[in-house]
């Protein structure tokens, strides 16, 4: 899920503790326990920390085995596909896990050449498709795509096969490019390779153990300054961290839940895509509704909201979200990155042409 979704989830979870909400209130609220504390902010702060560690630290310190080399002014897709394919083949033979860094092709301060790396499990091929130049908003400049003979590069793997039929393609364009991991295992005497997106993501940072360790810091500080309900500061922090890890389990990647005791990245339940606007907005909106409800009931002796909880959530959360989902389903197109979709369709056409060519060749041989 998106950073803000985790962030607001952490705050919302913290708001279920009446002493935390009371402490966070201003004295003008009339609550006798009000002390203008910032305790609820800890829920948000710890809620966004796992991804902060990954995207602002982990990614730059993860060591790649191979960096894809190219000339941004004259990229050769065949050479790029060869580099990727040969690296996967070599690692398969050596039985090693390999990480490849795909750097962006920067053409100027605001210009980037987009390329897409995709995999075909049926044909057992790695493809690189060079797309148009795009700006930092990822908007393509039509007509800047390379000529057809410089557009597509395909490498057929020799020493391994892909585990999945269609591993997810990767589009590379703006800012820093992704790193991909390729892990080969021997299954029934054959090398089988799985593709791992961002192998440095959701590893050590997405561990309940680390969350517990980091929340001890908040706990100790609160204890040192003899803050009222000092134990709550650590608890709110841990829950913020833990809710992030738990929410991420609804996606595909999961996390290394008990690192350092077991560094394995457990798979997620594949319920939602992390970037899906519907999931993110639904969680954010629901959290906002719960947050306001909790702030009201735990701050004031006589709650301000004149509705019982079921009416409140029905009118404030259920109805607006139902309207949102109906409109979304009616108006929104599927969520696919356009450059990737374009590359996929180009590859499909290319493969169809190859098939036709192969059939024609076969026909000419067989007469």
């Amino acid at each position: 899920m998106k950073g803000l979704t985790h962030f607001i989830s952490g705050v919302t979870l913290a708001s279920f503790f009446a002493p935390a909400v009371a402490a966070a209130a201003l004295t003008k609220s009339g609550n006798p326990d009000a002390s203008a504390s910032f305790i609820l902010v800890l829920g948000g702060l710890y809620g966004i920390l796992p991804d902060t560690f990954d995207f602002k630290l982990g990614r730059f310190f993860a060591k790649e085995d191979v960096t894809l080399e190219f000339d941004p002014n004259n990229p050769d897709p065949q050479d790029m596909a060869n580099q990727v394919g040969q690296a996967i083949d070599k690692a398969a033979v050596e039985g090693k896990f390999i990480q490849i860094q795909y750097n962006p092709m920067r053409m100027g301060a605001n210009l980037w050449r987009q390329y897409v790396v995709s995999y075909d499990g049926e044909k057992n091929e790695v493809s690189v498709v060079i797309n148009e130049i795009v700006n930092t908003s990822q908007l393509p400049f039509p007509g800047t795509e390379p000529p057809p003979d410089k557009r597509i590069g395909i490498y057929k793997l020799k020493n391994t096969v892909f585990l999945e039929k269609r591993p997810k393609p990767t589009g590379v364009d703006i800012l820093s490019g992704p790193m991909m991991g390729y892990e080969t295992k021997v299954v029934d005497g054959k090398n089988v390779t799985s593709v791992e997106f961002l192998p440095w993501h959701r590893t050590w940072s997405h561990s309940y153990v680390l969350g517990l360790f980091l929340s001890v810091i908040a706990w100790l500080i609160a204890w040192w300054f003899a803050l009222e309900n000092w134990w709550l500061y650590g608890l709110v922090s841990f829950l913020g961290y833990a809710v992030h890890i738990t929410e991420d389990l609804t996606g595909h990647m999961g996390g290394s839940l008990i690192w350092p005791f077991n560094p394995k990245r457990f798979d997620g339940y594949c319920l939602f895509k992390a970037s899906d606007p519907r999931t993110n907005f639904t969680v954010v909106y629901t959290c906002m509704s719960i947050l306001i409800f909790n702030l009201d009931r735990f701050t004031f002796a006589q709650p301000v909201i004149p509705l019982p909880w079921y009416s409140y959530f029905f009118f404030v959360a259920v109805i607006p979200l139902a309207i949102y989902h109906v409109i979304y389903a009616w108006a929104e197109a599927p969520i696919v990155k356009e450059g990737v979709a374009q590359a996929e369709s180009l590859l499909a056409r290319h493969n169809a042409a190859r098939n036709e060519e192969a059939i024609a060749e076969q026909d000419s041989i067989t007469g």
Partner: protein
Amino acid sequence: MEFFTILGYTLLGTLVGAVFSLFPSLHIYNVAGIVLVLWTYLGDSMQHAAVGPFFISMITAFAFINTIPMTFFGAPDESAQVTILPNTIYFMNGKGYEAAVIQGLGALIGVFLMIALTPLFYYVLPYVDVVLSAHMHWIILLIVVYLVLSEWPKGCGFGTTRLDRFSEAMGNVFAGLFTWVVSGILGIIILSKSIITHEMGFQNIMPVFVGLFAIPSILQNLVSTRQVPKQHICTDIDVTANDIGKSAFVGTVSGAICGYVPAITAGIGSIIASHATAMGFSARGDVLFILGGAITKFLYYVGAFLLIFVVTPLTPAGVGKGGLNIILRPIFTAEPGDYLMGISVILVAGGISFFLLLWLSRWVLSWVADVDYHDLYWAAFVAITALVAALTGFPGLFTMLVGTAIGCVPVFFHARRSNCMGVLLIPICLNMAGYGDQVAALFGLL
């Protein structure tokens, strides 16, 4: 009689707002402050019933017409394009008029959204306001924390060592963090121990805002070497019903955030709303950005002020937010029933401003390509500096200089410019929580 007073001052406010909105780097709150001084100077000759219509229509015109200097009076070269807005990119591609029309359309959508949201203003907002008012200090800090942590590394992460890669990619993030800290300290100093004279207290933060935001923009344009391309005056615009729906949705969310939470600007509201709705990802991203940005801007300036008229038993003083509300508070109090007048004024001023925007855009675009940008920005620099000097003297100029030094950091290191809002957000958050004096004492300011 009162009808004609309201109509007359609506037209006058629209005219004043439209004229002053054309000046690059001049903010309408500065104009409002000066008008307020003149208004109180004229005293009894000015009618009290005119205050609301005049200032509402002035800020409505600003929300429309300010598009012109924002879009047309900047020609950044390629080095700055990562940090500039899509409307300027449109302009640099010869589509400045299209950008202006889309923004005008966005502001019009903002007018209709405000009418549509009226029941919520009266039947939901007062309850939310009472609940959140008791917690506003940590909500502001929460937003600050999120903005700091969500600044995305803009470097490519190139480098031979891991440390090289880290520092190359994270330069803008550290610049953003630095900006938050120093602008926050500056804000604590300014609000605790202002060096601006008491007579000009209403413009206490004006020099620092000019320094943080206006002067760095001027400098950015002065160092730019790009020429303005020939502009195409389009007869239609490429906006679909889907674009309008999406941008209205994102614009409403961001407008609600920046229109309600104190010291949260339209830029900050847009960042949070785009993350909350996760709708930043589209090939039509620039159209949505311009349209949604215009809606947000309208709700931020006009909507925030309109809330002053939401007088209910729970909110007897209204829910008004924003700079104009603070400026007018000494002389203006809304009465129950004034909301209808407010929304009517917005409708009239908004309609006139939209057509003025179209006409003024064509007029400006007819000569803008022949103007030397450097002359224009030198003139703006001299004018804005003279205004600061005239209103606040040497102390104000000094404050402006300090603000400029801080404001240049995000501009030239490609960080978010909204980081400079630490100047208000940090001291406001501390003061609301009651820690303001303690922190000021730590700096030796008390």
